[in-house]
């Protein structure tokens, strides 16, 4: 259980790293590392070493740790933009809000009527904190690629919550979600390219300006 908690705590730390980093590649790296850490978790949770568990774990690590970040880095290279993040919400405030969310999530998880086997684990607070961090990245940054990372981190949070039900849900659902995610990022890569061609930047604030 403590190895599990350690990995979950690492994932929570990576949330803060994603919130604090000012360069695009490091945000992508943080999201990728978090995906890999979360990919290993089913192995620790599912005591039965079913081949499907291994398959999903390997698939998650490969897709979230290598395929999706690879796609994002390719989009970054193709767009040839400067690598500053350009926050709407400053780094220190977003770091503080993220940390506050983390503390609040721990307090909230203590108040929730959880099953006894989940009471001591950090899964529930980490899930809430990760979802909030993903939201913060989505609303507090202007570049499309960081917003994609926010979306990925948001999905990681939901995945963490889903791990509570790992003994009940068929793992094929996880595999399906992974496929959806890959396709989504693939599509976003194309969209990023289109935004870049249209506006010469990846600043999504351009979308709010009406013009002929």
């Amino acid at each position, binding site marked *: 259980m403590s190895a599990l908690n350690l990995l979950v705590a690492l994932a929570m730390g990576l949330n*803060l790293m994603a919130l*604090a980093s*000012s360069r695009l590649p490091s945000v992508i790296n943080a999201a990728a590392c978090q995906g890999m850490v979360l990919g290993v978790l089913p192995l620790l949770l599912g005591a039965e070493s079913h081949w499907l568990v291994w398959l999903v774990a390997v698939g998650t690590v490969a897709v979230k740790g290598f395929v999706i970040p690879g796609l994002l880095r390719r989009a970054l290279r193709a767009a040839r933009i400067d690598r500053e993040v350009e926050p709407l919400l400053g*780094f*220190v405030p977003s*770091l*503080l809000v993220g*940390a506050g969310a*983390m*503390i609040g999530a*721990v307090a909230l998880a203590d108040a929730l009527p959880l099953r006894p086997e989940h009471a*001591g684990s950090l899964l529930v607070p980490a899930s809430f904190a990760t979802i909030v961090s993903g939201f913060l990245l989505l609303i507090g940054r202007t570049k499309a690629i960081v917003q994609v990372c926010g979306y990925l981190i948001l999905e990681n949070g939901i995945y963490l919550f889903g791990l509570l039900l790992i003994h009940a849900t068929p793992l094929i659902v996880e595999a399906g979600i992974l496929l959806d995610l890959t396709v989504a990022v693939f599509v976003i890569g194309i969209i990023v390219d289109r935004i870049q061609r249209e506006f010469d930047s990846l600043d999504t604030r351009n979308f709010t300006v009406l013009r002929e």
Partner: protein
Amino acid sequence: MKIAFDLICRLVVWLVLAPLVPGIINKVKAWVAGRRGPPVLQLYYDLGRLWRKGVVLSTAVSPGFVAGPAVAWVALAGAAMLLPAGSLWPVEAFRGDAILFVGLLALARFATAGAALETGSAFEGMGAAREVSYAVLAEAAIIAALLTLSLQSRSVALAEMLATPVGAGAVLLAGGLFTVLLAENCRVPFDDPSTHLELTMIHEAMVLDHSGPPLAAILHGASLKLLMFSVLLVEAVLPIGKLPPLAAAGALTLAVLVIALAVGLVESLLARLAFRRVPLLLTTGFLLCIFAMLATWRGGGR
């Protein structure tokens, strides 16, 4: 009588050993850069030379300009006396000396910053402003670290707080306190102690106009602060208090040497941070201490 003798011994040990730490750090830096570097005892020579020199005073200053460094030095020495050194000597612990410790550190900073403002020089005012604005975050971090220790040991006396080993949050606490050590002592990612370009200095800009014995007091106080923070970091993380005296002394010395080595390596391998990024790193240190507190709180509750 015995107590007075003990106190004087401790004070002498603190005061004599303090200037060694910057010497070791400089040696490490020289060694990484492939230079021979100044001797380890260089700061002692500097202090002796400064002590023999006269004081040059600006016409604008009041006596507070000389009193500032003196008050700061006494406050730092007093704070050092509050720190226990494991089982090496019995400490006169009283309730709330941790708060006095933080207060004395703040008093030292106030006195130095006040003396800097005395001169009316633009650079010194700028240095003082930077020093106190970073101190807001650094002090929050050190208070959070002390709160963690206090939660762990259920006591507000430094001797008991530092004797109890920290559980799960030890790594977080070590990281946070190391960041605070670098920030409070103006080491590299925050400030460059060897730079002499006024626009980028923090601590050095504050003490530009001091000379002679007051400058010696400031330099010695800075080295005392560095040793104090190293000892605090070691004792907060390692359970030194549980060891027999000789082993405790060995472990403490070794750990302080390791910290000096780490500071030297950080200074050689890292560039100083851009100014606007400094608060972010300090906030990170503060959060590390807060999370250590959270881990202790969760661990203690169960």
